[in-house]
């Protein structure tokens, strides 16, 4: 410790640097081990992921919505495997049963000592178990949401990153395309396409190698086509904005100096650095895709029979609203819960991983 000086700058709790030009020889001695220890930062370095996860865990609403999302996934993908009834299975003699009601044949089987699983929500007019149909319907809805968001993620991020990275006239032309697509009324185009594409797609399904079209359904394919044509523009705008800022960073210049190709810079440096935005935007896209699908299915333009979707289940139940209200409320409540849970999950992820995006 140097002796007290009249003019000194305090730099630590018990350390002062005297204000003069005399060099203090003590300053040039090698640091002892204990001094080196002090220089080590006390806190462990926090990575992007652990920081985000920590923030996410603190958010009670987001954690609750995550639990609900996981439960809905379980309900729609795992539970049907253990459920004794198939969604398309028509049980003769069990048409139009109320919840937990048994048909005569089922009662006879019960008398004989067999175990008959109850129809938790009854059966519809064709003798199909409604609970099984709702499980299948929600799995269709969730799958549509996931696949559509994946399509939007791939197209939107590639388009936005290319426009932002190359800039100049490439950017101008690409963003003008985005502006135009943005003004196209998407619902009208979806309806138009699903009406007109039905026959060409059905003809295509007859050809070898295209049999999967029938399995997925013409309505769903039209929905996916429209999503890949129109819905990615929001994502493209967001990604472009991020890339415009990121490409001025030093590490991009360094990568370029080291001879990295354009595609490598976009893939490895730019897109990986807007991963937070990508996750959040994709998650928030899922509920809106589910929303669109249920709307179209309700109008009879989405999935084709016998595959159920929550929208088409609600539409068929509409005729019997006065006699069997539960048939309508079950799919209605399920879809509202799914959309709400994904919305809240997206909001939570945004607060945790991308606080800047908060609108």
């Amino acid at each position, binding site marked *: 410790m140097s002796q007290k000086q009249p003019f000194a700058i305090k730099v630590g709790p018990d350390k002062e640097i005297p204000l003069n030009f005399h060099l203090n020889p003590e300053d040039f001695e090698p640091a002892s081990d204990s001094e080196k220890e002090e220089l080590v930062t006390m806190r462990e370095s926090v990575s992007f992921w652990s920081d985000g996860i920590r923030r996410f865990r603190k958010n009670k609403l987001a954690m609750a919505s995550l639990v609900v999302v996981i439960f809905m996934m379980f309900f729609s993908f795992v539970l049907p495997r253990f459920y004794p009834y198939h969604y398309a299975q028509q049980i003769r003699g069990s048409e139009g049963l109320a919840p937990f009601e048994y048909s005569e044949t089922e009662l006879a089987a019960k008398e004989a000592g067999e175990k008959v699983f109850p129809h938790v929500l009854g059966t519809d007019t064709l003798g199909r178990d409604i609970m099984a149909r709702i499980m299948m319907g929600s799995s269709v809805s969730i799958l549509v949401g996931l696949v559509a968001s994946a399509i939007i993620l791939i197209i939107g991020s590639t388009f936005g990153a290319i426009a932002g990275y190359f800039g100049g006239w490439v950017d101008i032309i690409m963003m003008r395309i985005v502006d135009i697509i943005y003004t196209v009324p998407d619902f009208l185009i979806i309806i138009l396409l699903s009406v007109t594409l039905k026959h060409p797609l059905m003809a295509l399904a007859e050809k070898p190698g295209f049999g999967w079209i029938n399995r997925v359904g013409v309505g769903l394919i039209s929905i996916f086509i429209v999503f890949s044509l129109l819905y990615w523009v929001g994502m493209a705008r967001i990604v472009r904005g991020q890339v415009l800022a990121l490409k001025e960073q030093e590490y991009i210049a360094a990568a370029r100096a080291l001879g990295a190709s354009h595609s490598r810079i976009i893939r490895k440096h730019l897109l990986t650095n807007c991963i937070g935005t990508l996750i959040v935007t994709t998650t928030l896209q899922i509920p809106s895709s589910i929303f669109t699908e249920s*709307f179209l299915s309700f109008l009879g333009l989405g999935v084709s029979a016998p595959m159920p979707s929550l929208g088409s289940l609600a539409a068929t139940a509409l005729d019997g609203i006065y006699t069997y209200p539960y048939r309508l409320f079950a799919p*209605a409540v399920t879809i509202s819960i799914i959309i709400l849970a994904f919305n809240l999950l997206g909001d939570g992820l945004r607060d945790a991983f991308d606080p800047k995006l908060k609108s």
Partner: protein
Amino acid sequence: MAKYIVKRMAIGMVTLLIVSTVTFFLMFLVPGGPFLAEKAPSAATLKALEEKYGLDKPVPVQYKNYMLRLLKGDLGTSLKQRGREVNDIIFTRLPVSARVGGWAILVAVVLGVTLGSVAALNRGKAIDNVIVFLSTCGIAVPGFVVCTVLMYFLGAKLNILPTFGLTSYKHYIMPVIALSFYPMSYISRLMRSCMLDVLGQDYMRTAKAKGVSQWAALFKHALRNAILPVVTYLGPLLAYTLTGSFIVEKIFTIPGLGDSFISSITGRDYPLIMGTTIFLAFLVITMNVVVDIVYKLVDPRIKLG
């Protein structure tokens, strides 16, 4: 400013051109062409019809004729309602939809702005939590769920409101609630966050410091600034009301444009589908352009260019 308006209108025109071109070519994907009906016409009739409507000409000529017809505002003739012009159908159905939709837009904007402002002014209190909770649920519940729940409880259980038709003021209540529920929730969320933003601005403190009364500060400073983003939502709001009307009019059997559009889809009345699509697209695109221009006009802070 003029440059911006011209640019915005040009984009709108290009979009319209694309939508109508897409519509034209999609028509070729329909099997049997536009004259497909339950009873297939004879070869001679078909030929005569094709000649009459110019469908025997090469595609580029047909495209030119189609575009010229569109420019004149002629959307063709309906297949199922023999001899009725699509224009005629649209203009008898549109006023009905416009009345319901207009009320819904009014309710959504007025209630949305009020609820959002009330929530922002009472931030963190019980009323704020209630409004935030309701509006979060509101944007998660699809339109058909709102319709059917209303119909079941108000129409069937309590039997206080009629469930179909549109003949008295009572008939408007449920469709308007159903149609305005989602946009109202959206606007109140938007309004709340903008209002919170504005309330934290320096000019609000200045207004308070110079002795402006609380209400004057609220209406003249806070509300005026916070309401601007709601203006940008008016374009999407119109598009939402149109698509929402498809479902609402189907459920409540209202004889509006949405109802006729849906029955044209189920009845495969292709000219009516195409005509209504182009008309509605025209409406939405024009509205979007107008809203964008109005927004730039009312907000002096926005950079013109």
